């Protein structure tokens, strides 16, 4: 993917749309397939390397309409099955193609509460767009209809125009629900439960709500103000928000129910426990979990060194270990913080990388250097205990494993040294054990995830859970979907 200037992209879209509108006959499927894929206008890589502003600038209205016209309105709509919350994709694309963006967002909002977020961060190429007929016909998933980009466009438009309707709230029931955590799962539960007229109180450990969307995913991918507006919408609905409140410590879950009178609890505490590699040198100065690195930069605003009190390590050469979204975010943050060279070390090849395709492309454009089929073996330091280099070993791909991915196999004797001063470990997160540890009878798996039934209920009565704490590190839209399900169960339970 090479970078094209936003002006060129938008001009082309204007011309193409004019040509389509002038016709009097509807478009044939063949003509739809011939409409060029609308590329996302983005900041110039050379410029954005030095700022934290959003990389993807969003479609123009003409681009949004053209992209929507690429949709063939398939009868069976295979894309819908790929969306974890089952958005009526052909429905909203039809409206958007006609330029009726308000109807488009209304269709989306029937299923999704966070379209501006999901349109930006959903791994569309393995969800809705994976099954798209257009992508199949053009033999490239990246040329499927860009469902997420149109979703983002109509959500942004509604927000910017201040057109979002405040939801109707049923009369107060006098019932009270505690929501623990304030990530996408919790935000969804809070909205759905509040709408039924129940009192909702969110308890968040951090000083700011939003979960991973504010502490993990960087500003250049998901501007904080978008998340904040979702939170503001909740408080406008009458949802109470208590920050700096860590359930299990400030108050135990059982006390919330038995002493503070909550009728039900939702646990949406995420997968916040960073995994380390367990290799030599991992506690040297200059080794960070991606969580720490990203939290310092995002939540604590350390990137804004002139104003923030929280420091962040200034690095020259950085190695990021991992291949998911978290690794991309850490690598791209390191670039923006001024590192001269940033390497991404991944055990398999690009094909197996779990990160979103767009993030990988953006990271490359920004100069991140990808090392495939390599893995860290040992971190070496100087007498001050600071990182000086990383010993790596090369891999080749062997037989497919249980997940169907070809298993990387170490090549004996292929060790080599990589000179770095910083190592960021981004190999995933486990679940935070605090609530299970302080709540008797709450059943968890051996990986620490809370066990729930098909309604989202845990082993405890009136206690529900969802999102990463149940699924393990997953996605925003899955967390939201889990929240929807749990909220429905909570509402049903409280109706009894």
């Amino acid at each position: 993917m090479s970078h094209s200037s936003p002006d060129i992209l938008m001009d082309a879209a204007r011309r193409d749309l004019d040509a389509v509108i002038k016709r009097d006959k509807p478009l044939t499927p063949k003509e739809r397939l011939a409409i060029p894929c609308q590329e996302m206008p983005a900041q110039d890589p050379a410029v954005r390397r030095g700022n934290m502003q959003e990389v993807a600038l969003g479609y123009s209205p003409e681009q949004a309409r053209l992209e929507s016209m690429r949709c063939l309105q398939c009868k069976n709509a295979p894309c819908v099955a790929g969306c974890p919350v089952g958005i009526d994709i052909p429905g909203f694309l039809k409206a958007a193609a006609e330029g009726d963006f308000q109807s488009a967002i209304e269709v989306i909002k029937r299923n999704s509460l966070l379209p501006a977020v999901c349109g930006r961060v959903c791994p569309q190429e393995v969800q809705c767009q994976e099954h798209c007929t257009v992508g199949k016909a053009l033999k490239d998933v990246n040329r499927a209809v860009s469902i997420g980009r149109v979703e983002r466009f109509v959500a942004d438009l509604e927000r910017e125009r201040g057109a979002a309707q405040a939801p109707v709230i049923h009369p107060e029931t006098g019932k009270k629900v505690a929501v623990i955590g304030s990530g996408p799962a919790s935000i969804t539960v809070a909205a759905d439960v509040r709408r039924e007229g129940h009192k909702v109180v969110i308890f968040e450990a951090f000083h700011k709500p939003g979960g991973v969307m504010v502490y993990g995913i960087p500003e250049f991918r998901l501007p904080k103000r978008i998340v904040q507006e979702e939170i503001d919408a909740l408080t406008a609905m009458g949802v109470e928000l208590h920050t700096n409140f860590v359930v299990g410590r400030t108050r135990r879950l059982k006390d919330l129910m038995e002493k503070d009178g909550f009728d039900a609890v939702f646990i949406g505490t995420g997968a916040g426990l960073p995994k380390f590699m367990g290799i030599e040198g991992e506690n040297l100065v200059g080794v960070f979990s991606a969580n720490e690195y990203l939290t310092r930069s995002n939540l604590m605003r350390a990137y804004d060194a002139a104003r923030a009190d929280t420091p962040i390590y200034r690095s020259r050469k950085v190695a990021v270990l991992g291949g998911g979204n978290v690794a991309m975010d850490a690598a791209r943050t390191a670039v923006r913080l001024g590192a001269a060279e940033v390497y991404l070390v991944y055990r398999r090849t690009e094909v197996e990388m779990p990160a979103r395709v767009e993030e990988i492309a953006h990271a490359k454009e920004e100069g991140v250097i990808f090392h495939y089929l390599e893995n860290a073996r040992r971190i070496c330091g100087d007498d001050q205990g600071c990182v000086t280099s990383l010993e790596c070993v090369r891999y080749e791909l062997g037989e497919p494993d249980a997940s169907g991915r070809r298993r990387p196999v170490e090549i004996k004797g292929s060790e080599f040294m990589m000179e770095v001063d910083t190592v960021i470990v981004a190999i995933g997160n486990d679940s935070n054990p605090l609530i299970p540890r302080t709540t008797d009878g709450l059943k968890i798996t051996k990986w620490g995830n809370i066990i729930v039934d098909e309604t989202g209920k845990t082993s405890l009565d009136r206690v529900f859970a969802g999102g990463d704490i149940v699924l393990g590190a997953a996605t925003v839209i899955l967390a939201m979907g889990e929240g929807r399900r749990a909220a429905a169960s909570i509402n049903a339970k409280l109706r009894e």
Partner: protein
Amino acid sequence: MNKVLAREQLSADVVMMRVEAPLIARERRPGQFIILQLNNEFGERIPLTIADADPVEGSITLIFQTVGLTTHKLADKRVGEFIESVLGPLGQPTHIEKFGTVVCVGGGIGVAPLHPIAKGMKEAGNKLIVIMGARTKELLVLEDQMRNLADELIICTDDGSVGRKCLVTEPLKEVCGRRPKPDLAVAIGPPIMMKFCAEATRPFAVPTVVSLNTIMIDGTGMCGGCRVTVGGHTKFVCVDGPEFDGHQVDFDNMMKRLRAYKPHEDKAHHQCHLESEIELKEKKQL
């Protein structure tokens, strides 16, 4: 928002503050700490031990030394002003039971976190020996409180301005050499002091608890910034600690990690002093 209810300067660079925090005051137990932030937009999150709590008033007491940017800004807070965020109580409470004889060693500001533990140990029926050390007389804090608790109190200063002229490790070794030897040692203070206290008790096989003061961010186990090596394993001080078996802690690694942001912080601290100097001059001119 947490209101400052009382403020007292204990020594040149040590301040005691009582802060409104009813939920924390209700739940906290000895050994636990809070994380505070003066400003939610750009402030830093720093951990401080809960030196005492009053559940009736709904307040907690903090005792801190002004070492850098945030502690200096905190020291500037007056009664009636607010701290924007206080999170807690965090960490595992101290394991308190009747051990027999417990020797508590506090170095400098470490006496503050030591006080609630000493109190708990005493209340559990232990014989309590307290060793307090400071560089000089003026830096000794909570002397009266400790005197009231301890069955035996030993004070030492580096310059001999009060008590014995020695390091705390010297009386600690003597106490360990007594018969019967103490059943438990608790040492809290600068990392280097805790390291040598652990070395002092090791030959006597006196179990030794230390309370680690690593750099932290969230305090809930989310970032791993507070990690230390204990007995060859990585532990998170904020959730697994802050107290650990002193004989197992890799203090050298911990001390290096504490200096990770030194170049950055020295600059910020310098800046902060410049600003307070300017402020002071301006006040004088008024």
